[in-house]
Each structure stands twice: as C-alpha cells, then as structure tokens.
C-alpha cells in the first residue's frame, strides 16, 4: 500500500456530483452552427487555413499551429465556413477573438484518418503528430501537450494522471474513466514512452469508486506494468496539479519551478484519452466530454464538438425556468460566461446553468476579523488575511514578500471566509497591478537607456564635429600663406582618386577572371569550343551595347 502525503488546508464544499455522474455520456446532437475560436490553447493563435465559403470536412485543419508554442484547430464536423471574424469567446473578459464559423451540413463526413503504430514512430514525429492533432491539456490549462511531453532520458521518473476532479459539480473525467478507461491507459503508455517515465500514478478522489474500479479493471492481465490507480482523499483542491503531485509522491513543486525538474509530469486523464485517439485513430481533438448541470432538468455529460454554442448544448439537457447565467468550469474556479452564444472550447469541462436559488448572491462583505479560516484552508500555506490587507492598501511590495505569487487562486479562502470577502479577486488585482508596474518599470528603464545612449551619441557627434572643424580650420590656416599649393593639392587629390578607381577596376577584373576560370579544366574539345563560342557572342553583345550607349553622346 502506497503511503499518501498530505497538503495543508483545503475545503470541503458540497460536491453536487451525483446529479450528473449516474448517467452515461451522450453524443450531443449537431448544433445549428459552430463558432470555433482559433485561440483555444496557451501560446500563439492558430493561423486560419480556410476561406469563407469553403466546404470543410470533420477533422480538417482550419487553424495552423504557428510558432513554437501553439496548437492546431480543426473543424468539429463537416460543413461550410460562413465567417472568419472576431466573435465573443468563452473568456471572463467578454472580449472578442478570431473565430471560424461553420454551418454543419449534417453529413458529419470525416477526413481520411490514419492509424499509426506509436512504437514505430520517433519521438519528434509523435510530438509533431500531437501538435497537428491539436492535443492540449484538457484539465483546464489547455497547454499544448507536445510541449509537455518532452524530456531527457532518466529526468522524469513519474508520470501522474490527474483524475481527481476535485471541483464540485464536474463529472466529465469521472464518466470518461468509467466508460473509456482502456483508451486512457493506452494514451498513458504513449505519454510514458515520450517522457521516458518509469511509473504512472493515476490519482482519483475517493468519492469516485466506480471510476477507480473501472480504471483498475482495465489494468488486468499483465497489461500496463508500473501503473497504479490510487484513491486520494476528497478535499478541494486535491486535483490541483501541485496538490496531487504532493499527495501521490510527497514532492512539493514550488512556484516558478517546473515539475519536470522535480522528476514528475502531470496530465489530465482526458488528455491521455485524446493522445490515444490522435495516435491510434488519427482523430484530431475536435470534441470533449462536457458536464452540463445546475439548473437543467436532465444534468448529464455530453460529448460536445468544439464550437457548439453553449445555449444549444444546455437546451439538450433541458432548459429550466430561472436560469440567470452560465458558469464555465466549476463553482470554485470557473467563470461566468459573457454570453450563452459562445462556443464550447477545449477548456470547457463543465457548464453550470445558474439560478438564484442555487447560487444566491453573496451577502455584502464585512471587514476581515482575522479569524484565519482562510489561512487554515489555503493549500499553498499562505496567509490570505495578510495578503488581503496588503492588497487592499496597495502595499504590493509587502504582498510579494508574503508570497502572493504562490497563490494558485483555488478560491478555498474565499469559500470559507465568514466575512464573504472576495479574497481571490483582491489577489488577482494585486498580481495584475504588480505585472503592470513591472512592465511599466521595464519600459521606463528601456526608455531611459535609450535616452542616455542618445545623449551620449549626440555628445560624441558634437565632439567629432568640433574635432573635424578644428582640423579643417587648422588645415585652412596652414594653407593660407601659400595659396598656390591649393591647386596643386587639388590636382594631387584628383589623380589620387583616379588611381584608386583604376586599382578597384583592376581588382574587379581579376576577380571576374578568377570566377570565370572555374570549371574550365579538364574540358573536352567540344565543350571548349562551345565556351569559346559563348565568349565570342558575349564580346559581340558588349561591343554592340557600348556603341549603342556611346551613340547618343556623339
């Protein structure tokens, strides 16, 4: 039995998972249109690869990965591209981003798919395949997986698969593990191979016994050696990558340090599944499991094509009166969608229809009474009450010395706060202020450097000019007593220039002769005759040209 480790704090919000976890995954019916953002991943936005009016097939690339850190985007079904423009996307800001709108033709016609044997493929090719298939982290971070699946030999010992799913309401990983365990494990084998990892630890919170059972059952008969499914205690945020790593291995990855440097790498179970689909079936990432729950009549999980408008998806789970908004993600770290018309993206693990009864408005915040319930709940061992104080008073330096940037914004502090202070928002504010100030400082530093250099350059030029002027004056003064020598000097200068030109011409000719003489050895008489003929023709042309140029002069 493996000894599990603990992390500090945590909270126990009501899980609300059973509403949607008992029903199998349903394929979502094709929507009326797909609005697919070209920027669904961390890194550079994909470059549009289709034209308006073009017919695309399911799985066809519509956005090409650009730059080192990027990922491809594909059409989720066959249909016609009707627009490539700036549209509101699923982001808390409510800002627009470049999206491809596709009207499905209902045929759901695939591109040609190729099944590959990953064991026969070199690692670079595998990584390239994943990048072209648009595989990104499906736990919410949407970091291009090919960039994380890179390791030197013996550097990473442990690959962690994250099936903890600690956020309330969300059950997409739970259902995926119950229904598609074998493919998750096959994907994990590909990942393990890419990372040269020895063991694979799959952490699942112990409130999902069916998923644990299904994953264990898929491991029978000598398959998947060195893999282990581990039930971890149910405590929020036990599914945070750092928290899960700590629980499973005892390793604490400090902020600013890569987990690979500590010998671990962590992926969501859904990502492992997509890796397998991409490699073994040639299917790019065009859909994912999304939990639709909250104020709907039939909460359940759907396999949703990317770009499907949220309102059409929610309607398939049964609209209920009183819905006043939608949360994307869980209630602890998710955000309220700016519009119900935005398309589902790779980061969409859950859509919660909100109602006044389920999510009552927060009471007005009272002052902090320093009760330290937040500090007791903080999984990063921070002192949120102090950080709050510093953030409120805009004492950002102090906030940084109290390790503000170690905050993972899990929201456990806000959740337990008896004064209902929106602590996470204060911390986000401070972080962005600090970033902005650092940016300002850097550009100010650059401007100052530029200015200083300019000053220096102008000073130098002034000195040089003065120097030249002085030299000229000196020369002029020296010339004054014998004005006759001026003409002699001028003549001298003219002849000197002519001599220089002559020398340059000679050099050029010598160079030309050198290049011309190349490849002329060991030639057959026929070739020599040919060359002689060409040379003669060139000479004639040159002559003709010269006479032609000289004619107008006469």
């Amino acid at each position: 039995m493996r000894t599990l480790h603990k992390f500090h704090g945590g909270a126990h919000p009501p899980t609300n998972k059973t509403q949607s976890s008992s029903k199998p995954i349903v394929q979502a019916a094709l929507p009326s249109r797909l609005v697919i953002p070209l920027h669904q991943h961390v890194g550079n936005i994909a470059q549009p690869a289709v034209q308006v009016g073009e017919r695309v097939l399911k799985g066809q690339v519509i956005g090409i990965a650009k730059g080192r850190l990027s990922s491809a985007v594909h059409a989720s079904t066959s249909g016609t591209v009707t627009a490539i423009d700036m549209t509101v996307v699923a982001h808390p800001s409510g800002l627009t981003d470049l999206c491809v709108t596709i009207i499905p033709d209902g045929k759901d016609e695939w591109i040609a798919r190729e099944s590959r044997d990953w064991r026969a493929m070199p690692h670079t090719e595998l990584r390239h395949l994943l990048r072209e298939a648009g595989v990104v982290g499906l736990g919410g971070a949407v970091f291009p997986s090919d960039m994380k699946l890179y390791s030197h030999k013996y550097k990473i010992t442990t690959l962690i698969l994250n099936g903890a799913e600690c956020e309330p309401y969300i059950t997409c990983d739970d259902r995926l593990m119950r229904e598609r365990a074998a493919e998750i494990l096959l994907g994990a084998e590909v990942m393990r191979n890419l990372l040269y990892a020895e063991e694979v630890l799959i952490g699942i919170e112990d409130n999902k016994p069916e998923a644990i059972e299904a994953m264990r059952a898929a491991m029978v008969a000598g398959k998947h050696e060195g893999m282990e499914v581990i039930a971890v205690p149910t405590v929020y945020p036990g599914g945070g990558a750092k928290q899960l790593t700590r629980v499973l291995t005892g390793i604490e990855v400090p902020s600013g340090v890569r987990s690979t440097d500590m010998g671990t790498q962590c992926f969501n179970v859904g990502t492992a599944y997509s890796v397998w689909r991409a490699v073994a079936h040639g299917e790019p990432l065009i859909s994912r499991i999304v939990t639709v729950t909250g104020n709907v009549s039939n909460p359940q999980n759907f396999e949703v094509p990317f770009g499907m408008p949220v309102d059409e998806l929610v309607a398939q789970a049964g609209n209920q009166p009183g819905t006043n908004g939608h949360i994307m993600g869980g209630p602890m770290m998710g955000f309220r969608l700016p519009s119900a018309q935005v398309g589902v993206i790779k980061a969409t693990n859950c859509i919660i229809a909100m109602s006044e009864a389920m999510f009552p408005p927060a009471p007005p915040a009272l002052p902090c009474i320093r009760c330290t319930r937040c500090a007791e709940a903080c999984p990063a061992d921070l002192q949120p009450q102090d950080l709050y104080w510093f953030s409120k008073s805009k004492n950002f330096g102090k906030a940084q010395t109290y390790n503000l940037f170690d905050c993972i914004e899990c929201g456990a502090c806000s959740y337990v706060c008896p004064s209902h202070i929106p602590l996470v928002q204060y911390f986000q504010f401070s972080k962005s202020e600090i970033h902005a100030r650092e940016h300002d400082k850097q550009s100010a530093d650059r401007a100052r450097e530029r200015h200083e250099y300019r000053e220096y350059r102008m000073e130098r030029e002034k000195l040089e000019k003065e120097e030249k002027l002085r030299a000229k004056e000196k020369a002029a003064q020296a010339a004054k007593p014998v004005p006759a020598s001026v003409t002699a000097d001028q003549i001298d200068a003219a002849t000197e220039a002519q001599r220089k030109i002559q020398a340059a011409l000679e050099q050029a000719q010598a160079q030309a002769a050198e290049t011309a003489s190349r490849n002329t050895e060991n030639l057959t008489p026929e070739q020599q005759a040919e060359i002689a003929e060409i040379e003669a023709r060139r000479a004639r042309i040159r002559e003709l040209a010269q006479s032609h140029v000289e004619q107008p002069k006469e």
Partner: protein
Amino acid sequence: MFFAPFISKPLNVSQIMFRVLLALIPGIALYVWYFGPAILVSLTLASITALATEAAMLKLRDRPVAPFLKDNSALLTAWLLALSIPPLAPWWLVVVGTAFAISVSKHLYGGLGNNPFNPAMIGYAVLIISFPVQMTHWLTPHGIGQVELSILDQLRYIFSGILPPGMTLDAVTMATPLDTLKTQLHMDRAMQDIMEMPIYGRLAGHGSEMVALGFVLGGAYLLATRIISWHVPVFYLGSIFVTAGLFHLVDPTHYATPLFHWFSGAAMIGAFFILTDPVTGPTTLRGKMIFAAGAGFLTYIIRVFGGFPDGMAFATLLMNICVPLIDAYTQPKVFGRKEKKQ
C-alpha cells in the same frame, strides 16, 4: 455572484459571534446561581449601551448601520465587559465602560476588525483606573455573607445607590478571592490558614470557581465547534500553570497552587473568550502559542506582584501590542519552500 467561487461556506461572522455568546451562557447561569441576578442587569445595560453606541458611531462614520449591528460583535464586547465588572457597581459604570469600549477602542480605530486592542479589556482598564472604588463592589456569594440583598434591593442600589436601612455596603460586598489572598498574605498569614476562610471553596473562591468551570464548559463547546483553536487556551493555561507551579514549589506558604490561579479571577474567561478574540490576536499558529504563553506569564506576574486585583486584562492588552511583531516573526513557510524533513 459574479466571480468565483460562486459558492460560500454557510458560516458568517454574525453566527460565529452568536456561538461565542451562546458559549457564555453556562458561566452566566452559574453566576446567577451563586451571586444572584444582579449580573443580568449589568449584562442588559451593557448590551443596550453597546448597540446604541455602535449605531451612533456607525452613523457618524457614515457606515451602513443594519449589517454591522447584526454582526453581534458589539454584544460580545458588552457581555465580556459586564462579566468583568462587579454586578453591584452603579449603572453608569457599566454604561461609561461599554460606551468607551465601543466608541474609542473599536470605532475610532476603524470599527470591526481594525481595533488593535481588545475593546472589552480597554473598557475594563479605563474603569479600574478611573473608578477603582466602584470596581470593588463584588457580591458575596450565596450563603457566605450574613445578610443578602433581594433582587429589588440589588436593582435599587444599582440605579440609585441606596441600600436598604441598616445595611452597609461592606456587609453585602467583599473583596475578590485574589485580593483577599493578597491582603492576607501581606498580614503574614500562612497559605493554609487563608484557604480555610469561608470565601474559599475547593480550588479557589467559593462560587467564582464554579463560574470559571461554566466558562470552561462554554470553551469546550467553542473548541468542539472549531470556533476557536486549542492553541490559545492550552498555552495560556499551561503558562499560568508552569509559572504558578514553579513559585508554589519554591514556597508553598506564600504562593497559591496553579489550580487556584486557574480558577480565580478571569483566567478561564480569558483563556477561552478574551485571548481567543481573532481581531486582536496573532494569526499564525506559532504566534498564537507565543501570544498565549506571554499573556499567561504576565497575568501571573501582575496578579502576584502588581497592584491590581487581577492581571488578565493588562496581560491581554500588553500582548495585544506585541501582535504585529509576533505575526511578522512567525510566518510559516509556504508550499514548496519548506526545508526537507528527513
């Protein structure tokens, strides 16, 4: 709600304060049982004064009145102060003390959550320095004195200062067990003899030891419901025990037992209700331990060697001053930055 988290734990400040008030009830009940209902009068007076002062100060500071009145924090200050004042003290003493505690030591510092000193203890300190005589009108417990005041007599005395004919104040009041011990020791009486006096019970003062036990009960409830953590009570009482124990071991005839100090004066109410005030205490766990241990030591020193009847209030205030320093020097290591334990 517009931002995550969209859910919150169903426990608010008002409920926390209410549970602390609830936890005071066993102590108050035993108080009434042993000393008569006069304490209920001062509790009521203090409550009304506190709420009125709170409302007035909020109004003056241009803050919303209703949400803050509902937070129960003013009531808690009032109750803690009323329990520290002799029940037979004139009505204006309670009113002045509470009004000062709420207006000056709470609102002038910025209201709830911003006061560096425990308001109830500031109120107590102001009263004991300004009105030392009135602060000695402690009731004699039931069955000890020759005469006893009826409820009506107690009420009349509190509001008009008139005692029934033929009764003197000395006959119905007494010095506290701690004070008595100090004066008797001054008169060179041996500890054993002093403890034989009728005002002493099994461990400490007759009656008052039972009230202290009531506060322990309430404290246990607060611990069980995780309103307070064990660090402060354990380290405070532990510190008193160790300090008193050392003195007692060296010279048992002049220094009372640790248990006597535990159950005398404000030690128990302090351990569970006053030092555990989150606003004026440290936030880190190590800080809480240092804070409580310091307060325990100071309580004992002031009690035994100082001029005041009890050291609890001043120990609290002195340690309140140290809180920012304690917090700054006891910051825990954050995730991933801890030294390897191996």
